[in-house]
């Protein structure tokens, strides 16, 4: 009997994985040259920055918070680093500075959320405006990046051959996967990770248990800020330019990735592996829509319809699982 009691979050993850595989098979059957290693690798190449941002977002969502400033952080990172690189700064100075910037932004949001009890949505919205505004202050035009290091990272790929077909992965994909692995390890095996889940499940009881809620909550926002900055660096390597209006609405992509992967916005439930599949599913939807050669407005409707499909299936399964639990 015990085997039947599947956890809800595992079910969501399972559905995400099955749907990903199902969509990939559908794409392979429907289109020529879709079912190849290159498609999968391009998926990773194209969404490496989103993976990093979504991993950071998962930490915040797990504590029951939300941070909608990440899109602006990504944009600000890419604009500011493009500006500094054009001014002649070396990449080795720019990258740590960006990480520090992300950390400070995240820390400030976390501090306001926990100490001043401002609602996370609102304070991160204010920071979203602030950083978007700062982008325009730095430059309204798109700045090209000509730095040698960025160019090298942008153009060189590692060729990998599996089963006779060869495809390339950019270096930054490995950075993204490394961060993903680190996040998975931290959440799963460390004291800090357990504490994050505990705070998300019930902040009050976590406090009574003697966990340092303040430290944990500020840390997750700081981690999220750093992840957003890393995402911004990867994004600027990817596009080799900084533009103040790019990535509008990225925060919703990050949040929906986490949600498709089974993270609950109420906190306490979710994994970064699920988030990874959430990102990949969204990337795959976009790829399929591109293959279908649809109008841009149909793209939006299709993505929304698929998103809806996922969410509804997830809910139905979750409701059934809850009923089973009640019956047991």
């Amino acid at each position: 009997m015990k085997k039947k009691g599947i956890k809800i979050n595992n079910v969501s993850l399972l559905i995400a994985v099955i749907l990903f595989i199902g969509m990939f098979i559908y794409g392979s059957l429907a289109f020529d040259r879709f079912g190849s290693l290159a498609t999968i690798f391009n998926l990773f190449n194209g969404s490496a920055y989103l993976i990093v941002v979504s991993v950071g977002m998962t930490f915040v969502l797990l504590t029951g918070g939300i941070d909608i400033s990440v899109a602006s952080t990504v944009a600000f990172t890419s604009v500011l680093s493009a500006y500094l690189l054009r001014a002649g700064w070396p990449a080795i100075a720019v990258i740590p500075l960006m990480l520090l910037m992300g950390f400070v932004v995240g820390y400030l949001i976390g501090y306001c959320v926990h100490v001043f009890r401002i609602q996370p949505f609102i304070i991160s919205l204010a920071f979203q405006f602030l950083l978007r505004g700062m982008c325009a202050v730095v430059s309204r035009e798109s700045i090209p990046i000509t730095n040698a290091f960025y160019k090298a990272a942008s153009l060189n790929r590692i060729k990998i051959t599996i089963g006779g077909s060869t495809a390339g992965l950019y270096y930054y994909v490995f950075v993204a996967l490394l961060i993903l692995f680190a996040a998975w390890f931290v959440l799963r095996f460390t004291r800090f990770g357990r504490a994050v889940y505990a705070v998300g499940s019930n902040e009050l009881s976590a406090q009574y248990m003697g966990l340092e809620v303040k430290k944990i909550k500020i840390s997750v926002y700081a981690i999220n800020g750093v992840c957003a900055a890393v995402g911004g660096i990867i994004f600027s390597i990817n596009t080799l330019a900084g533009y103040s209006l790019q990535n509008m609405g990225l925060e919703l992509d990050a949040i929906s990735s986490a949600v498709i992967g089974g993270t609950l916005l109420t906190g306490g439930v979710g994994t970064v592996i699920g988030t990874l599949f959430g990102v990949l599913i969204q990337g795959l939807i976009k790829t399929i829509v591109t293959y279908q050669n649809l109008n841009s407005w149909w793209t939006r409707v299709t993505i929304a319809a698929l998103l809806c499909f996922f969410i509804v299936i997830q809910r139905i399964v979750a409701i059934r699982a809850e009923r089973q639990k009640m019956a047991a």
Partner: protein
Amino acid sequence: MKKFRQSLEFKPILFFILILLFCGIVSGGSFFKVSIVDGHLYGRLIDIIRNGSKYMILAIGMTMVLATGGTDISVGSVMAISGAMACSIVDERILLFLHGNVPAAVALALLCGVVCGTWNGFLVAKLKVQPIVATMILLTAGRGIAQLIADGKIVTITSEQYYLINGGYFLGLPVPFYIAMAMLVIALIITKGTAFGVAVESIGINANSSRLAGIKVERNLWLIYIFCGLMASLAGILESAGIKGADCNNCGLMIEMDGILAVAIGGTSLSGGRFSIISSVFGALIVQTISTMIYSFGVTPELTKVVKALVVIVICLFQSPEFVGRIRGLFKGQKKGAAA
């Protein structure tokens, strides 16, 4: 007086007056100047109530959604849909048998809002999807649907009757202001005059115990999301009448953030519970005043968002009892030290 100071309405009204005073002093009084041009009032203050109307209308709908502990981030897209619908009908692109009849166009656009709200309500109340995720579907799809209605074009219209909705005047004041006030009165009657307001608050505090107490949680959630969709479509009509056309890509872009911001500045908690529609309306006026202030002082466009963000952060900080307590502590530091 003390009762008023403790009410939700106190701080937003205070902030609103302070910002207005600040603008008035910095501009040397010209901010308050209201003159009569062509038989109606004209000035910065009139600008604020005219342009602020759509925020007020959005905030009225959004307040109830937030009071139940939910969110509706699809309002911008709903605005785009209703704008596209109304303009396409008025311009006789779709539904030709209506012959560009303006009241019919408005009615159908409002119906679009109701349909959108029903969809959101279905996802949130029936399927119990998390509100932010549920409304994200319409946020993504809405602009696509709007473009399908408008056939991917920017619809421009020439209808004096339709322009009146945003540009007209009645007894010297702009028409949108009357629309916003009418909505406010209706919302107040619904929430204060019936048990509906208490039900909303109770759902926001604890949906489960509300159900056990006999409140029809599901039905009320449907109604709230439908009302929010209706308000969004009304705001969309105002916006499209203002720009004399429907631009599906930019109509109400990111306006959901401003709407939520207005409610939050008004002091309604985003986690649900206590709410005040009047303070949300003042929150909306504050948001609009900040924008008008920035434009009228000739702040460079680059800095607009930065200034707005800083003002919002300051208001948020002063809304937080912890922060205010700390500031007080700084001034009373010695006293406290002596007591300890």
